[in-house]
């Protein structure tokens, strides 16, 4: 039986190090190639030796697809392609391709320059790796080879995040990457059409959470910042992830604009600034508001937000500063924190809502259900979440949609048996003939049986009428006839008996053509019935029935009917 196999190398019942192998219709695909933030040893990267012990991966993988630029989805990419060895195509969207190298370079710097690790990939390797990338557009169907095709859908989450639909023949898999079903200040909501994949591989970070409306949270946040600024205080906002920073920037920028505020907003330079450059370019990937207004003004060209300089921290008056890193444990945010901590007017926004916002661009339980409803998959597979939470969601999915749901651990293979439809060419003549037999319109809801010959020739399937098949294959037609004798006790003469049979059948089988031929036979359709007296007993007659293979049904019915004897 054809089946689809899914093996997570990372992110199976776990968050981080997303890397999922899918083999579908004889093709092997790697979805995402991420690193794990929690480890510094070999567990940091997926275990590529699962694919092959030694040698390059190129022979075993048909393509690699990266869903978005977060390091837990693309962090191991240079390692895999350059150090383990992979020369095949790598697919990602345009924004991901642009921003991903910045993050990889940053990651490399921290690991090699700061922590002093050796045997790590180099800048050159990142560049080489990026050369293998083929960019994707939304809703563009890309043929990886003759049979394998992929298509990207919008996923929200961060700029350029995509869900991919992978299709071989009639088998298909959708991988969501990380996605978000509620729009935010700079990105829209994930959307997919009703593609009915065999498996939907979905993240499940928030499998057990239903979130409150964003608006309250935004309002609270803005109100607090506003109040603090009005008091003349300074606000420090430590931010975590790329993407969330942009959302907060947009939020504050529009608020400043609306409320006509003058206090400066600063942004610590570095990573986010570089990324922001790309946010300006990829306007088509943002939400409705930004897309519609960018003709007047690109929302990412901030009016009120300026780059931060160390000396500004001492400036008097109110200000807002975004600083990295988010945990206040080191770097700029710590320095500023120390400087400002003395004054009670200042506000340090480390409370729940910011932390909350920085992770919130994932779909919650309701969002996941909504996506399932949109895509209508036949099977469900959960990754990128904690086992216990997945368990809950799995139960819910099975209960509500009555489809199978899997949650394999890392290295564990799930196989799903598919029932692919096999396309067959049908000859037009045959089709027309069948059409003529049936009703005026084909009813799509009812399968219909038809006669024909299936010819399998050089990888193609053809359905033709039997005559044509014979002709094509150069075969002679063979007739197959069944004959049958039936003993009958009947005192009449042969011809009378025959006549009685004729009238008997005539009265029973009203819809059939029954003929009494002069040569002493009765024809029911194409079935021949003859009568001969047996030599010993004039009363017992022998009926000869003969029918061809096609009339098997009618023939056997007649024989059983005649065996019962004639009515007296």
């Amino acid at each position, binding site marked *: 039986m054809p089946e689809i196999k899914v093996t997570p190398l990372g992110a199976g019942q776990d968050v981080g190090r997303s890397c999922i192998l899918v083999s579908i219709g004889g093709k092997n695909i790697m979805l995402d190639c991420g690193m794990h933030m929690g480890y510094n040893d070999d567990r940091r990267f997926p275990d590529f030796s699962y694919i092959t012990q030694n040698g390059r991966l190129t022979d075993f993988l048909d393509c690699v697809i990266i869903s978005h630029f977060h390091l837990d989805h693309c962090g191991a990419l240079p390692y895999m392609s350059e150090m383990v060895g992979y020369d095949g195509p790598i697919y990602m969207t345009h924004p991901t391709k642009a921003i991903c190298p910045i993050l990889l370079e940053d990651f490399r710097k921290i690991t090699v320059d700061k922590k002093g690790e050796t045997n790590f990939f180099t800048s050159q390797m990142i560049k080489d790796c990026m050369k293998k990338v083929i960019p994707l557009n939304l809703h563009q169907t890309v043929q990886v080879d003759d049979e394998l095709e992929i298509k990207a859908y919008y996923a929200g989450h961060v700029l350029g995040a995509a869900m991919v639909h992978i299709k071989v023949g009639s088998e298909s898999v959708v991988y969501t990457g990380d996605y978000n079903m509620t729009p935010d200040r700079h990105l829209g909501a994930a959307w997919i059409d009703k593609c009915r994949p065999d498996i939907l591989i979905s993240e499940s970070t928030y499998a057990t959470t239903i979130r409150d409306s964003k*608006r309250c949270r935004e309002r609270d946040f*803005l109100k607090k910042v506003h109040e603090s600024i009005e008091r003349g205080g300074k606000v420090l906002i430590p931010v975590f992830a790329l993407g969330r920073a942009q959302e907060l920037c947009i939020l504050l920028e529009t608020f400043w604009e609306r409320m006509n505020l003058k206090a400066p907003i600063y942004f610590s330079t570095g990573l986010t600034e570089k990324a922001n450059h790309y946010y300006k370019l990829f306007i088509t990937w943002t939400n409705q*508001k930004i897309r519609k207004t960018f003709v007047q003004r690109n929302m990412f060209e901030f009016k009120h937000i300026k780059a931060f300089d160390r000396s500004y921290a001492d400036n008097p008056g109110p200000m807002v500063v975004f600083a990295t890193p988010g945990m206040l444990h080191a770097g700029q945010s710590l320095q500023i924190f120390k400087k400002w901590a003395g004054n009670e007017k200042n506000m340090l926004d480390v409370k*729940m809502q910011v932390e909350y916002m920085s992770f919130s661009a994932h779909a919650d339980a309701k969002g996941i259900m909504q996506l399932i409803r949109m895509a209508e998959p036949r099977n469900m597979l959960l990754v990128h979440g904690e086992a216990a939470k997945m368990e809950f969601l799995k139960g819910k999915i099975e209960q509500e949609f009555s489809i199978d749901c899997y949650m394999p651990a890392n290295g564990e293979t799930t196989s799903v048996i598919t029932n692919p439809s096999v396309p067959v060419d049908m000859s037009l003549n045959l089709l027309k003939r069948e059409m003529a037999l049936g009703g005026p319109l084909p009813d799509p809801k009812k399968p219909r049986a038809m006669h024909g010959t299936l010819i399998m020739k050089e990888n193609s399937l053809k359905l033709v009428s039997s005559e044509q098949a014979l002709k094509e294959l150069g075969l002679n037609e063979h007739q197959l006839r069944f004959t049958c004798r039936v003993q009958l006790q009947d005192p009449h003469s042969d011809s009378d008996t025959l006549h009685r049979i004729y009238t008997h059948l005539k009265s029973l089988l009203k819809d059939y053509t029954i003929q009494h031929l002069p040569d002493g036979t009765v024809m029911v359709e194409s079935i021949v019935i003859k009568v001969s007296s047996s030599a010993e007993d004039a009363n017992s007659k022998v009926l000869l029935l003969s029918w061809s293979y096609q009339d098997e049904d009618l023939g056997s019915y007649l024989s059983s009917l005649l065996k019962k004897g004639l009515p007296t």
Partner: protein
Amino acid sequence: MAAHLKKRVYEEFSRVVQIPHEEAPAKKLRLSKPSKSAALHIDLCKATNSTDALQYLLQFARKPVEVESVEGVIRILLEHYYKETDNSVRLKIASLLGLLSKTNGFSPDCVVDDVINTLGNEKSHQVLAQLLDTLLVVGTQLPESPAVRPRLVEVACKLLSDTYFGVRNKCLQLLGCLGMVDTPLAKDSDGPSSSIGGVRDVQSIISNYFSDQDPRVRTAALKAMLQLHERGLKIHQIIYEQACRLLSDDYEQVRSAAVQIVWVLSQLYPESIVPIPSSNEEIRLVDDAFGKISHMVSDGSWMVRVQAAKTLGSMLQVSPHFLEQTLDKKLMSDLRRKRTAHERAKELFASGEFSSGRKWADDAPKEKLDTNTVNLIASGACGAFVHGLEDEMFEVRIAAVEALCQLARSSPSFAEKCLDFLVDMFNDEIEEVRLQSIHVLREISTHITLREDQLDTVLAVLEDSSRDIREALHELLCYTNVSTKECIQLALLDLLKNLNKYPTDRNSVWKCLKFLGSRHPTLVLPLVPELLSTHPYFDTPEPDMDDPAYIAVLVLVFNAAKSCPTMPALFSDHTFRHYAYLRDSLSHLVPPLRLPGRKQVYSLDSVDPGCGSGSVESAKLFLQQSLNRVSTIQNLETPGAQDLLNFTIRDLQRLGELQTELAGAADFCATYLRCQLLLMKALQEKLWNMAVPLCLKQNVTATAAAQQILEETYKLEFLYSGLESRQVATIHHVRLQAKALQLILTARTRPGLDLLISSCEKFLQEIESFQRMFLTELPHLQDGFVDKLLELMPRLLSCKPVELVKILQSSLRQSGLLQLRLPEQIHRASATIIEPTGESDNPLRFTTGLVVALDIDATLEHVQEPQDKVKVQVLYPDGQSHVIHPKPADFRNPGPNRHRLITQVYLSHTAWTEPSQVEVRLLLAYSSSSSSPSSSIKSGWSDSIDGLPPAEAAVEGTIPFSKPVKVYIMPKPARR
């Protein structure tokens, strides 16, 4: 000469009478008939191949065809159709047939037979579809024809089994447009209908196609069903289940149409009971439909989401239980139930703790949830609006806000619940949505009282930089109820902050505080000492009277004091002085108060609104009495008449100032009487007895008077709304008098005979048209000037101009004063320019040759269609004047009969040596052709208007209707 004149006059009239019998145009049409169709025929014959023929047809389609030649053209087209082998040409012909059938005045039933015949032989599906489209056009042209309808329905039923979707689509459309549910027509005539199998039940035929394989056909079937509904046929409830199934169709247009059908059914059968699948329970159909449509608010296609959200708003019969679910979204975090931020805010408020937001983890999850009870797929209406309001597309959000509004208006408890959500929408990223939600909150504000924390959120928006938003919010605050005195204080503080930040909002903020004060007198009372900063022992410094913030506080306090008699006791001395000042300067914001010891001074004003309706009545009575008094003046010669008029005018003007409700009517009467007075003065005896050269001066005054009366009549006609045709007739009557006066004066001063003849002619025409226009009103004009003239009409027509003038003169002087009857509601259009204020001493500097934009903000009241009528005039010191037509988008409509014009005008001028002032004012443009004294009369004879000279039809002009504002500008010479 007179004979000549008479002849010409007769000619004029005879021509008017003749018009209905005129045959000429008809003849002309008949002539064109053969040429048109013949040309087409020749063209088509000439065409050697199908491309050529197609080209000819396309060219032909560009020109209209006269009614008479339609039939001929159709014959030719059909003839060609039978011969044509090319599909595209046949298609074009079929579509032309449809176009031609639409020709006005052509009855297309003769086309039906031919088209139906061709249907039988047609092989191409596209052409078939087009032919059916033609039949559809014919069918809609003849909706009631008993002969055509069943035939078309029969054809449609027959072709429904076609394999091409377009044909099936058109058939369904035909059925939708023409099918009858139970055809009484067919039953009566039994014969033909029995042959048509399907006519009995068009609905079941259509609903068969709900499950067609082609989504376009499914959509067409649903639309056809809707069409049936729109035509007033009752749809059966049976299709409900099918329609619900289509809600989960793969194609958005099907889902969208299905939402509509489900909605229609829920309105038709709200109380039917439907079973819930997979359980034994049953619910009302409207609830079930509501749940299903709610589900569509989280559909994949935003078009469907908009549709669903809109539809929800009109399902008012839904049970409150279901309604409230739409705002419910059970939160959880790690499988533990969480309260929403809204619930937390409410609890915090209830516990009396001041919202600090500093409590650590106050949103920490509470009790553990049982996994079995958590329902993730929202069954039913759960959280529909929560989703809708958070949607990605602002179209959906707006639709959801509107739906919330409709539902909340009919259910106070729901209004209470949706408050939090609406307030949240004040923070939306798109201004339109914010504005809409503020408006919605205003509309439902009668049902609700804002809590302090909610008010806080609302007030935060006061700092918005968009003026529209702020003003909408002020409007909202005018209607809001608040619960505590802290709320009042909070609102006042924020409004003052707003005033400080945006000084231009002054008027709007004051108005807002006026309503706030008069709504919550008891809540303001305890705040008074603090607000006025009075102290029991010490005298506090007297605040600055020009401070807008102080005025704002006073407006709040005085309006509260109106219904709170104990309050004035808390005022300090200067407060009373300030009251007197404000009562005079801002009388529309400060109500009359009963202040101790000051009654005498304000006795005139103390017509206080407590007995408001009574005072209006008495004022009305007074108005009527004044008018009656005036009507005793028999004719313009009566002695003492002038004095009486003078006094009455003065009385009326004062009345208008005192009683704002009657201002329009009083003004109207006063202006009318002023016209009469002017006329009277102009006709004074001694003036006319003198020889012409001696009374040059009087002549000048009379001419000026005539001119002024004319102007005033235009004002009377176009500046006031609510006039009935009787008043319009009176106004026209005065105008006619003024014109007669002018004619007399012309006759006296300029003896040029040609000129006199032509003006006499014109005058007679005007009398004629007056008679035509106000035929029904003539009985009311008894004894008037026109009445007299009409009696003398035969004589007038035959006499010489000099004699005519004499007659006019005597009848003018003898004719009595027409009594003015007041219509129910009369309003004077008025405009106030709020900005520029004209107070600035800083000139607006700009370089000559370039432009400077001047912001104009004005309120217009009682102006109909201001987009077309209101213009801005700029007068430069050198006498140049520019009239600027503002864009339609610059007008906003904040309330009934109220408009707001916010626009920019561009000024430019050559260099000046020093700054000077330009005048800006608003003009009301009018055109007498657009004024319909009585629309029925107008439309009655407008058919024959073509023959009349256009000069009579339209007098255009403008009336200034706002006080001019002076703006200081300074065009500097360009620097080189």
